């Protein structure tokens, strides 16, 4: 445990959607490739063949776990890189056919900002609305597809509110129209069964650090035959499609982590039950709170609740003092003052979007952790409300502030 974790009586890590600890088994699998088996997989001698074989074994294992072929798996340095590659790569490869892209308003920034960047290059993007649960409507999706649509991309599960989209249905609609379909499955992999063939997607992105592999490794599934340009040109690595000396330890670690995560999926029923206990416990003890995202179509570990009259950062900081690591909105945008685009998209007004808390639990979470959160959270919310002018106004029966 790091210093900071010792301060309070208990440390409860409830931010598994932001990142996870590297598991001992994954670290063990990686270590030999730093020290002894350090060859460059592209070289010719035995030391390198060991490294090359480790990479190919990892690729084969990941392919098997996702229902893909080994030559359909490409390693990247992050979920973000995989997202950028899929979206920019497919868009630029199909430019001659059209310049229209369909996506949703609640994608991760790695997809959303990539779409914005493509708009500056002359692409046109339709950002589909979602309903109050965060779901894309397949009919709206179908209607958004045009004859010049060259890519559709909808995330599998949302990182903030945990909503799980009907991907196989959406992919089938795109397939009918012969439009390549990409899904950002960074939050889904390891939490839901993921089989690329069953889903019927053309591309799928995942990230290691959400499943107890390190930060800085990801993978992109590219179905054979999919047209895509490279994002990183150079050496012949990854069959000439993604240059850069292979990160052998992390590649080995990713395969090991995915293997463990997929084997554990049946156990997540327990996590789902803890999640529901958290949701029910919070909603019943803290007034003026509401669940964000779908109650049913929801990641097993995701809890996202909006508390009126208070702001998320101060909530997270006070929870931290109590030994609880949580987040407000997407971790990536906490440095900015924008309220979460996801919460706005599901219809929250700005002031409520500011007061959202995400607790993301995992197989490592215990019932005691849940008890601890349920004990610490209400007084902290109460304390912040006590110093909130909005709450003061509310109690006086005045209208809540708004523009």
């Amino acid at each position: 445990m790091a210093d900071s974790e010792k301060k309070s009586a208990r440390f409860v890590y409830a931010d598994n959607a932001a990142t996870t600890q590297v598991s001992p088994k994954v670290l063990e699998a990686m270590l030999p490739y730093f020290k002894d088996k350090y060859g460059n997989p592209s070289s010719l001698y035995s030391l390198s063949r060991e490294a090359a074989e480790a990479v190919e074994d990892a690729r084969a294992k990941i392919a098997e776990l996702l229902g893909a072929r080994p030559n359909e798996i490409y390693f990247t340095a992050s979920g973000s890189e995989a997202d950028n590659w899929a979206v920019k790569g497919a868009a630029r490869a199909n430019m001659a056919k059209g310049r229209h892209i369909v996506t949703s308003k609640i994608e991760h920034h790695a997809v959303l900002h990539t779409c914005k960047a493509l708009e500056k290059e002359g692409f046109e993007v339709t950002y589909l609305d979602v309903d109050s649960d965060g779901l894309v409507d397949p009919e709206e999706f179908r209607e958004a597809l045009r004859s010049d649509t060259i890519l559709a991309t909808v995330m599998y599960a949302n990182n903030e509110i945990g909503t799980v989209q009907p991907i196989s249905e959406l992919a089938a609609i795109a397939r009918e129209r012969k439009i390549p379909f990409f899904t950002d499955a960074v939050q889904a992999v390891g939490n839901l069964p993921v089989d690329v063939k069953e889903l019927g997607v053309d591309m799928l992105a995942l990230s290691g650090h959400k499943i107890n592999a390190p930060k800085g490794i990801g993978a992109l599934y590219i179905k054979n035959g999919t047209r895509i340009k490279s994002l990183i040109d150079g050496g012949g690595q990854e069959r000439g499609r993604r240059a850069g000396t292979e990160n052998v330890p992390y590649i080995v670690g990713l395969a090991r982590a995915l293997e463990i995560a997929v084997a554990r999926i049946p156990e997540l029923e327990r996590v789902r039950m803890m999640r529901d206990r958290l949701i029910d416990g919070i909603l019943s003890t803290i007034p003026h709170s509401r669940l964000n995202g779908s109650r049913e179509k929801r990641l097993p570990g995701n809890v996202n609740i909006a508390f009126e009259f208070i702001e998320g950062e101060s909530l997270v900081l006070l929870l931290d003092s109590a030994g609880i690591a949580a987040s407000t909105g997407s971790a990536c945008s906490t440095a900015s003052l924008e309220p979460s685009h996801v919460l706005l998209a599901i219809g929250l007004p700005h002031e409520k979007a500011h007061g959202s808390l995400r607790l993301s639990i995992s197989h490592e979470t215990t019932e005691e952790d849940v008890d601890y959160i349920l004990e610490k959270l209400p007084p902290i919310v109460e304390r912040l409300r006590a110093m909130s002018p909005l709450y003061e106004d509310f109690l006086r029966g005045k209208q809540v502030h708004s523009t």
Partner: protein
Amino acid sequence: MAMIYSEKVMDHFSNPRNVGEIPDADAVGEVGNAVCGDIMKMYLKIEDDVIVDVKFKTFGCGAAIATSSMATELIKGKTIKEALELTNKAVVEALDGLPPAKLHCSVLAEEAVKSAIADYYRRQGREIDFDIGCDGHCDACHNHH
């Protein structure tokens, strides 16, 4: 990147000074709005142009709470004239700095003080001869980057 707050900021956030209301305040100022994510409300008790008591309520991030707390400390016992000289820079310095993304909070704190004093002037029928600052629009008081 994580907000790396100074120890002073964390202290004023965790143990904010002068939180609360003054029911019979001589002046009340409120700046910011919930859309932007910060609202500061400041209550002043003033005797002979001296701020004898001050309280605040803030809806906002850690820095918003800490700057409110620090600003109230810095004007307590000061004359109105002295309080009007409080700059956001002084608040930031007293807190041993703020992350760049959070500088707007110190601006808001300065404005909360000015807004309260403006209210005092108004109640006294005095002419407001200083700039109140924030016009209530996000873009005006937030230096996005």
